[in-house]
């Protein structure tokens, strides 16, 4: 299984600059917002957590369509599903590798973009930790979406449409936790724990759905 993880990371790193593209997309989304809402520093710092979360959400959707479609196109999927390994574990690894190469770089880039949006240090910390807890869920739910659309030549758009509504709870609890950290009466811990729970839940559900879907559909 570690061999699979290593392979995924190698492939992501070599093709198209890997993690760079996702972070670049994130940066582009963050840059677009001040044009839309105006360069008002106060307003931007108020909106910053939302902007960062939406940027990270959209950037995480990139590359989801290739997660299984590419494996199917080059014939690897046949060999991946034939072995004795539990399929769920195989696809968990694929989704985890996707997060490592798309979600994690976004988390690490957040402080820089937070500064640009004039977010307070506490706000940056809260955004980072909620993104760290929440973005894996996007990759896991994405694995389910990607497996459903594996045979479609232009599945990318469809996967986004399928996955976005499902990750809304992630967004809700992520933002709620940040609000809790930044304003006094609202709690941080409760929504944050919900966020962690969603991620853990999807880490089982996503790979499970993918394994049911892909057991026999490589053809």
């Amino acid at each position, binding site marked *: 299984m570690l*061999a*699979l993880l*290593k*392979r995924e990371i*190698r*492939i992501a790193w*070599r*093709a198209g600059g890997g993690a760079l593209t996702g972070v670049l997309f994130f940066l582009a989304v963050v840059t677009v917002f001040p044009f839309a809402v105006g360069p008002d520093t106060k307003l931007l710092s108020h909106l910053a957590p939302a902007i960062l979360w939406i940027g990270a959400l959209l950037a995480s959707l990139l590359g989801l369509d290739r997660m299984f479609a590419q494996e199917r*196109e*080059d*014939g*690897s999927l*046949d*060999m*991946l*599903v*034939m*072995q*004795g*390994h539990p399929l769920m574990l195989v696809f968990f690894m694929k989704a985890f590798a996707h997060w490592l190469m798309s979600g994690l770089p976004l988390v690490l880039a957040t402080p820089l973009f937070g500064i640009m949006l004039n977010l307070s240090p506490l706000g940056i910390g809260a955004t980072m930790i909620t993104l760290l807890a929440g973005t894996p869920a996007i990759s896991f739910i994405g694995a389910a979406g990607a497996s459903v659309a594996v045979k479609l030549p232009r599945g990318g758009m469809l996967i986004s449409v399928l996955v976005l509504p499902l990750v809304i709870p992630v967004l809700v609890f992520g933002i709620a936790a940040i609000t809790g950290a930044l304003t006094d009466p609202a709690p941080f811990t409760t929504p944050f724990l919900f966020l962690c729970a969603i991620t853990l839940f999807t880490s089982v559900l996503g790979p499970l759905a993918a394994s049911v879907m892909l057991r*026999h559909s*490589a*053809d």
Partner: protein
Amino acid sequence: MKLCVENMALMRAGEEVVRDISFELNAGEALVVTGENGSGKSTTLRGVAGLLPLASGEISLVDDTGKVFENPVREYCHYLGHKNGMKPSLSVRENLDFWQKFMGENLLSVEEALEEVDLSHTIDLPYYYLSAGQKRRVAIARLLVSDRPIWILDEPTSGLDAQSVTLFTSLAKAFVEDDGILIAATHLPLGLDKTKTLEIGS
């Protein structure tokens, strides 16, 4: 060891493509699957490899004492389809190394396997650099890095030149003579002693 396929039927797009496929293969025997284009050769092979759900029938692997292996048959199979299952951006070594680690049951080392298909000089080159025939040979080398008692090969020699075909047939022969079970869809004579044929369609 014996591979038994009984009354296998396979569906594709809601239609029964092949039906009533039955055969038995003992260790050291080969089966050549023939038939016209579109007759369902590939489907049959994919069915045996466990890559398609069986509409009906049964596939089982029994050992010499008649005991049925508990794990699904696919776990004992190497499958070489039309596509090679390699990543262009990785080197030949990285590709084979991954499959060896992922499949387990190490047989030959990656270096030795590439030696067998006469590709030692490409080991550190990106897979992308290789010609179509060389790519196919790398895929054949994959059969050698992990130990599987059954090889299921779909047009294994497509894209190979005459010299490489000879190379492949000698590998297949060595495998069968070493008590392997080989199922192949191919037009070429494999030059094996104990070869059965299965005509599909018509």
